[in-house]
Structures are given as structure tokens and as C-alpha cells.
């Protein structure tokens, strides 16, 4: 099986303002409860579009929001349908430079803070983990972004990126680092010129010097015995992965992420995800246009909980 090329979801079917059916609000709340992925009023049309795509795929008598809600809550169907719906919700989200707000926050606030803190002890090394890296868009973005930082703020620093995914095929694709127009739609030209070489057709391949910064591995986030060896991380990214976990395993996985982070380390979720009722150890920190879950600084950890 080869990893499918994701196509842009067709969102034209549903206009903003056209989401009057209260069933979609119920579905929104249900999705939020089970997965932690939230659609604000402005984004509700995207959820409705995902539901419509599922209705079309089911092909049966389910044609309204209300009927789809019944299907989604049917004890015999809900597990499978929930997963299918989540696939539709996150489809096409995978691309390089997906969240500019996160990168801006790193560039302008988080990295300067880490740099200032570390310069006191002379440790100029950064450890990053892309957990659930899929076909490699995120770790490659981070590698290029940090290489740029090495020219200014992080001059003289080294960094390493651990990229893991459950799916072997995804890892193979990720290692190849070849991307088409759709995956590259947010990538600034500067980065395309500097960090890619032409592959086939219009596709581009990530340069070897970028790949050299990343270690790709297969990892099951539910594998406790391996999770404990991912220590000393400064930044962990886990976008649209936890949404597929049930509440118990989600709590366990997030606890691992917490333990593996350095004090003051940052845990990044997808833009629509939340850890509400999953962990109260992390601090939800606001930055311009984005939020991040932060492990408290070392001093706070000492005086805090026993």
C-alpha cells in the first residue's frame, strides 16, 4: 500500500453562513468531547463540509445533519464513523509551513527565551520531537526553520529532530522528502530555493543537509517502554494525532510528553486541538494568534506539587 496523495478537500459545497442546522452544533460538541478538536463558529462550515463528504461516501439514506448525527452516535457504528469523520476533518491539513503563527511564536518569543536561559549555562543544544510526523512535512519544516535560526539567534547552536510515526509507509515517504505543489503551497519561495532540489515533474526534494537534522523512526505512542526513552525534549509537536486516542490512553500519552519535556519546554498541538480535561499539569500559554502548552519552569516545579 502506498500513501495516498492527499487532495484539497472540497469546501465550496458549503458556504460560511449556510450552517444553520443545529445538528452540526451537536456534532461539533461530540467531536470535541471525543477527540479534543474544536470548531469555533467561524470554522463550523469546515465541519459541515467534512460531514457532507462522509454522507456522500456512505451513499445511503443519510443526507441531513440530523441523520448523520444519529449515525455518528449509533453504538454499532460510532467507533468506525468517528475515525472516518476525523480523517475527513484533518484531510489536506498536512502541508509544509502549516502553522505560521506557531513558527512566528517560536521565532519571536519562545526561542529567544530558551536562548537567554541556556546562555547562562552555556548549553547550546535544542532537542525537538515531531510525534506523529506522518509523511514528514512537519519535521522538514522545523529543520529548515531552525537552520534559518542558526544563521541569527541560534548561531553556534546544534539541534536534533526526532520524527516518529506509527505507520511504516508514512516513514518511508517522510524519509524520501519529496513534495508536490499542494504540500508546498505555504512554503515561502526563499525556503524552496534554499532547501530543496528538483525531483520529478514539478515536485521538489528536501536537500540532504536538511534531512541530516532529522532521525525518522517508527514509534507507537502507546508503547510505554519506548516512550520513556524520549527524554530531554525542548519542543514537542503532536498535531492532529491525539484526536484518535480514547480518553485513557490520551492521558497516558500526554503524561509521557510532559515527563519527556525539559522544564519550560513547549508542547504544540494542532491549531484546533485542546488538552481540556486531559492534563492540568501543563500551563496553557497565549501567544499572538496561537497557544502552546508549557511545562512550568524548574523553580516552579520544585515549589509546586510534591
Amino acid at each position: 500500500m502506498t500513501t495516498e496523495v492527499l487532495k484539497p478537500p472540497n469546501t465550496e459545497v458549503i458556504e460560511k453562513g449556510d450552517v444553520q442546522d443545529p445538528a452540526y452544533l451537536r456534532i461539533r460538541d461530540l467531536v470535541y468531547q471525543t477527540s479534543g478538536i474544536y470548531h469555533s463558529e467561524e470554522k463550523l462550515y469546515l465541519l459541515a463540509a467534512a460531514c457532507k463528504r462522509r454522507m456522500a461516501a456512505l451513499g445511503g439514506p443519510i443526507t441531513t445533519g440530523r441523520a448523520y448525527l444519529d449515525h455518528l452516535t449509533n453504538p454499532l457504528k460510532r467507533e468506525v464513523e468517528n475515525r472516518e469523520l476525523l480523517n475527513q476533518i484533518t484531510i489536506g491539513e498536512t502541508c509544509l509551513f502549516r502553522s505560521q503563527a506557531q513558527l512566528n511564536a517560536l521565532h519571536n518569543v519562545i526561542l529567544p527565551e530558551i536562548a537567554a536561559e541556556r546562555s547562562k549555562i552555556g548549553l547550546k543544544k535544542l532537542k525537538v520531537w515531531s510525534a506523529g510526523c506522518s509523511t514528514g512535512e512537519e519535521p522538514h519544516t522545523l529543520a529548515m526553520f531552525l537552520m534559518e535560526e542558526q544563521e541569527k539567534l541560534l548561531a553556534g547552536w546544534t539541534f536534533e529532530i526526532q520524527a516518529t510515526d506509527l505507520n511504516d509507509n508514512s516513514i518511508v515517504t517522510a524519509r524520501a522528502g519529496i513534495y508536490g505543489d499542494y504540500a508546498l503551497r505555504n512554503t515561502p519561495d526563499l525556503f524552496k530555493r534554499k532547501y530543496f532540489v528538483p525531483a520529478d515533474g514539478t515536485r521538489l526534494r528536501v536537500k540532504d543537509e536538511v534531512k541530516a537534522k532529522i532521525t525518522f523512526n517508527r514509534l507507537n505512542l502507546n508503547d510505554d517502554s519506548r516512550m520513556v526513552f524520549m527524554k530531554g525534549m525542548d519542543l514537542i509537536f503532536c498535531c492532529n494525532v491525539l484526536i484518535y486516542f480514547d480518553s485513557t490512553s490520551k492521558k497516558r500519552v500526554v503524561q509521557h510528553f510532559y515527563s519527556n519535556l525539559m522544564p519550560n519546554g513547549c508542547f504544540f498541538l494542532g491549531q484546533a486541538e485542546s488538552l481540556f480535561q486531559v492534563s492540568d499539569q501543563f500551563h496553557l500559554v497565549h501567544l499572538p494568534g496561537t497557544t502552546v502548552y508549557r511545562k512550568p519552569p524548574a523553580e516552579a516545579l520544585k515549589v509546586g506539587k510534591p
Partner: protein
Amino acid sequence: MSSGLREGLKRRIERLQCLPSSPAVLQPLLELLRQPTNRINVKRVVQLVSYDKTIAAQCLRIANSPLYGRVRETDSIHAAVVSLGIHRVEDILLTCCLHQFSAGEQWATDPAVFWRHSLGCAAVSRELAERIDYSDPDRAYLSGLLHDLGILVNSLAYPQEYGAVLAAAAAKGVPLDEQELHDLEFTHCESGRILASLWKLPLAVNEVIAFHHHPAKAPAGNPVVALVHIADVLCRLRGLGYGYEEWRSVDLAGDPAWEILAKHCPQLGKMDLARFTMDLDAYVPRVQALVESVFTTKTEQPEVAPSH
């Protein structure tokens, strides 16, 4: 702030009071705001709104904005007062008055930015108040609307100097009050407070204006100061700020304001802040649309007869 500086500031603000554009409705409206709720006369409010044609038209446009959770299209002031409730009409009227007050004047900044932030903070303050079961969401709205009155004051009283302060804050990506303190030795909290006293605004609102950047210093017993502080920070980090990004990270639950507010409103401790934050993104386009439709003073081109 030195006493000399304070006197100079006060004189400039007193001069502002006599601005030619200051609407006639403003003084009676402020008078009205000082009344206890049960003594407010609906008929008098309708009269006030209808007094000034520009204000009446603006009021209707605001009343019909989705930000005010419009029940149905309203085309008469009386219907607006009835369907929105007296408090919301007061809010709307005051918004229009403040706009009129400053419309013809030379601003140090883009007035639309000020209005987006003020209306955004007002709406977010009310939303937050409702989520945490605070007893008076209308008070929260009014306080959010007026919290940055001092920016309007500084903008009009120091049109040249203040433009430079704003530009410097934007270039550095630092909070405005920091830059004000550095360049002017006072912040919009002080100047806002002086105008609020001259206008005899309710004390609780005055406290919000004076202490919204340092809610721990506010007199105890007024949780709206902390509430507006939180709404203000959220707005500034979520696209409804002063027109630039402030490069900082804020742990709201660790902010002293959070603790103060939680004491009054225990619901705050149970609130899903991540979800609330995402919900706020819906306000950005709504506030922008409202400001564009109502407050952006388009320079009307006089009709020129075609030349032959």
C-alpha cells in the same frame, strides 16, 4: 508621574472637553449612566438617541450587527430599545457618542484600530462574564468598551507625540503601556482616569480604566477590573489589539487577575480556556465588519459636475 506632568495632562484633557465635535447627547447620556438601573427612563433614552440624526443611524446599524445578538432586523429606535434592552442601547449610544466626540479631530493613530479593540474587548468581556456566571455582563461590556478611554485621550491631546509612541511600540512589539511609560512617563490608564473623573463616570468603571493593566493594585471588591484585564489580553493576542503583534507569552491562569476573578466567580476555574480562545476568533471578522460599516469615516467626495 510628577505633579507638574499631571497638571499639564489635566489641562490638555480639560480642553478636550470643549471639542466642537463633542455631541450634545454625550453629557445627558453620561448623566443617565450614573442613575441606578431601575430609575432609567426608556422614553428619555429613545429621545436621546433620536436627537442626533447621525447617532440615530449609527445606533440602528450597530443594533443590527450580529455582535449584538440581534433578534430581528430593527428599523426604529423604539423597537431597538425594546428588543435589545435598555443597557445595550445605552452601550450603543455611548459608543456612537465617543465616536462622534473624536470623529472630526486629528488622531495620532488610525481610529478604526481603536474602535476594533474597544468594541472587541467589550464583546469579549461580556462573553467571558456570561461564561463564568458573573452577575452583571452589561457592566462588563461597558467597562470593556471604556477601558482604553485614555488611548483616545492621548491620541487627541497629544496627536504628534502619541503617534511616535504607538509607532515605537509597534516596531518593538511591546505592550503599549510599557512604551507610554518609557516615552511619556504616564500611561493611558492615568489620562483615561482623569477624563473619567471629569465625566463623572461610575466609580467602578473608573477603576477599570485606571487599573486594567495592574488589576492586583485595584481596590478590592471590583472583579470587573480583573475580568477586563483578561479580555483585553486575549483581544491583543488574538487579532483585536492595537494593530500590531505583541511578542510575548502570557500564562493567563497564572496571572494575578485570574485568581482575583476566580474568587468572585468560581466558574472561572472550570472554564475551558482553550475553547473560549478559539471561540474568540469568530469575533474578529464581526468586529471588523461592524467598525467598517459604522465607524470608518469615509471621506465623501463632493460631486463634481462633468467638465465640458
